[in-house]
């Protein structure tokens, strides 16, 4: 069931009445949430719900009872093997099978590896990461062992199971176990839902339909200017799409009495890649840092090893998004970018900052540079294949300024204006979000209806996709 459908709205509102009205027991509410979450997963496919149940049971036994039989090192090894196994079977098998076949074919060896037709269980990429957080927190004694039902809810909580954000057990389980739950900031929740509709239906869908999808699907059939515009447009498309989705589920969770972690913090304000990753998909980047980069050795084993760890962590982050060479290259590019930044900081230590008079220019140039590097990497992230990415880069390589000004002056002006005004727009949105809790109830629906009506008037037909739901 799509979160943006009429039936979801109807069922969710009915569910809220059942959830908040008849009793005042968090335990009962938790059971209702578990039932609703499993029902949602089962609507996609009953087997997905059974896999989720089986996985929850495995994690419960491993985290709550496994330490009686296994030392933490082996317990983590078992957990990692299980998750990698699940990912390989459900997510990566076809990619590995085809890649190995192609590589062997290139050496003249024709071998047909067996095929496997399995559906990727909805939410596997997210609830498996949730489980890592729980197992590690319990082993580190940051968290008491949770009951099976609490753990079930932590893993299946429907607002964040489909496309995140990735909740940490330390922050989320206490909310599940809190006996004083209440409906949180309802007007802010409604504001977030409306903002999500605006981002998804208007900005993301319009850019995707008009500037991104046609070009990325056939780069050589479009002019260099269109290719370049498509890259800029995709940077905003994916931002509006994913941050819009995050706003949506954050609003839904507030109605249920839960606070989800922040996933975005104006990422295109970043002046370097490290800052970008502290602003973009924050829950994933912090997860990769804590559970991949640091266990690999982090920055504790010398400069060279640190850089290798950065590169590896970023490539794993890329592969998490999907089984394709393009995602691995995307991750590797970000890894190499961070390494280059580290190298730069080695040569010019941070305390050698430019004089104040130059810091304004320095900061904004850095922001422009960082945005363009991120856009460059997005080419690989969005392209259907490596061939398409190369075609697009070749096309962009032949861009001529005169041609751009002649044919796409307004479009590039719009891109520039959006980039320049982005800090202001971010501030306005934050202020509006804060103000929303003071909005008079009586006028609220009228104001929202007018804004959303305008948005729907310009939005393309059809229901927008959630890009991150497919990862």
């Amino acid at each position, binding site marked *: 069931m799509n979160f943006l459908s009429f039936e979801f709205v109807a069922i969710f509102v009915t569910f809220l009445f059942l959830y908040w009205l008849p009793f005042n027991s968090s335990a009962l509410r938790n059971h209702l949430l578990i039932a609703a979450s499993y029902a949602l997963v089962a609507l996609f496919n009953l087997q997905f719900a059974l896999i989720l149940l089986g996985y929850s049971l495995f994690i419960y036994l491993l985290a709550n009872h496994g330490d009686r039989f296994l030392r933490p090192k082996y317990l983590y090894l078992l957990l990692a093997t299980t998750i990698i196994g699940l990912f390989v079977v459900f997510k990566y098998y076809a990619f590995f099978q*085809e890649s190995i*076949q192609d590589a062997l074919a290139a050496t003249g060896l024709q071998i047909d590896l067996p095929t496997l037709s399995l559906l990727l269980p909805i939410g596997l990429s997210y609830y498996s990461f949730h489980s890592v957080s729980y197992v590690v927190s319990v082993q580190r004694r940051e968290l008491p062992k949770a009951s099976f039902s609490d753990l079930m809810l932590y893993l299946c909580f429907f607002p964040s199971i489909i496309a995140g954000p990735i909740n940490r057990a330390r922050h989320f389980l206490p909310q599940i176990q809190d006996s004083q739950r*209440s409906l949180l900031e309802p007007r802010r929740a409604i504001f977030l839902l409306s903002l999500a509709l605006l981002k998804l239906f208007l900005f993301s869908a319009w850019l995707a339909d008009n500037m991104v999808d046609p070009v990325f*699907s056939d780069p*050589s059939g479009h002019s260099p200017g269109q290719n370049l515009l498509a890259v800029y447009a995709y940077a905003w498309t994916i931002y509006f799409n994913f941050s819009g989705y995050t706003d949506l589920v954050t609003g839904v969770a507030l109605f249920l009495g839960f606070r989800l972690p922040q996933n975005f913090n104006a990422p295109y304000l970043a002046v370097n890649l490290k800052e970008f990753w502290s602003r973009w998909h924050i829950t994933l980047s912090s997860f990769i840092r804590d559970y991949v980069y640091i266990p690999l050795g982090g920055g504790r084993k010398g400069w060279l090893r640190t850089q290798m760890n950065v590169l590896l962590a970023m490539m794993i982050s890329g592969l998490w998004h999907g089984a394709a060479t393009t995602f691995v290259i995307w991750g590797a590019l970000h890894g190499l970018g961070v390494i280059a930044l580290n190298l730069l900081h080695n040569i010019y230590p941070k305390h050698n900052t430019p004089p104040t008079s130059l810091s304004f220019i320095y900061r904004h140039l850095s922001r422009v540079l960082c945005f363009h590097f991120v856009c460059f990497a997005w080419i690989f992230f969005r392209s259907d294949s490596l061939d398409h990415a190369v075609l697009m880069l070749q096309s962009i390589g032949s861009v001529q300024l005169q041609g751009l000004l002649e044919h796409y002056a307004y479009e590039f002006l719009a891109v520039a204006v959006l980039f320049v005004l982005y800090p202001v727009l971010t501030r306005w949105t934050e202020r509006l979000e804060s103000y929303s809790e003071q909005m008079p109830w009586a006028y*609220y629906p009228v104001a929202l*209806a007018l804004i959303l*009506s305008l948005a729907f008037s310009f939005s393309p*037909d059809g229901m927008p996709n959630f890009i991150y739901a497919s990862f």
Partner: protein
Amino acid sequence: MDNVKKLLLSCYVIFACGALLIWMHQNSLATFWQQNYHQPPPWQALHQHAFWQAGTRVHSATAKAVASFVLEMRGQPLAPASDPVPAPTPTPTPTPTIEIDLAAGLNLDTDKGTDTDTDTDTDTDTDTAMTLEPSANSCQCPVCPSPEDALAAAEPLEEPLSAAAEFKQQAEISTGQRVFFAGDSMMQGVAPHLSARLRREYGLSSLDLSRHSTGLAYPSAFNWPETIAQTLNDNADIKLLAVFLGPNDPWNMPSSPGGKFLRYASPAWEKLYRSRIREIIHSAQSRNVDVIWVSPPNMRPDNLSDRVRYLNGLYESEVLQAGEVFLSSNQVFQYPEATYSDYMGDGSLKQKMRSGDGIHFTIAGQRTLADAVFNLITFIPQQQAEHDTQPASSDRH
């Protein structure tokens, strides 16, 4: 504030805002509702009230104001208020009444043509999420044909194909001519590969108007017969039309905008649907444009797959009877009968062809289909085309 009060106030905002939005966007939301739930929207009864109709006028006035603003900003002249809406380009009228005994050779399974299953249906709007649809049986429209009518629709309605016109094996195109792609999200995946190959190998350009969530069942959402006729009219260099659609269609559909709903696969439904296929083919033929019609392959969701196979029978009979080129993607993917596979049905290629939803295609699948369509196109270089023009034109009908 306690939870109940917060909830009631929140519901007030959500429902009041929702009601205002439905009031202002009632037409587009009605179309959306029809496409997704295959029945009239619940607010249809309100249409007779003046206050409800005012919503359409408010929206229409706003849309016109915005359109005028955009035109003015672009420096384009505004049409005088008194000017009538430009008359649509006359499109070739399809056979006005299609007699049932004129329709041709179908291979229908009786259990496919009926609408008696109670399974939920799978929407095809997104690549990533399967949306559950209400059962087609849920249509409460009083005029829907009975299940008996639907069963009757499963009977062969048309003459055997042997009596049909001679059909082409290949479509032809020459230097300087263009290919026009029409279809839904399946075509959106295939067209770029085909377009790139045509450009690379023959230097041909193409026009891709494919749009997701479109088909022939809901012309109020997107009218393919009209769009195709208009596009062919405006682009005389188009020589080949490739059509690939279907999975958005096999549900109850309105007989006319705002009209009564016809039950899927009933005789009336089939008659109307066939007329739209014919309208497209006729548009092309009347402009000397060849047609390649690609039928959707079997799909993982059984209910959708069965329904699409019924549609394929309609496409095949209409296209072959009109003497155009028909490509069965089931044959391309080597699927035996009604089976579905993520890979080639005969196991000949260990490369995944279908995407996770079991409806769309992987890049390899898109390329395979694009190659199959490409192989049905004969490129005639300019000189030879000119030489062949006379005899070729006399062969047209």
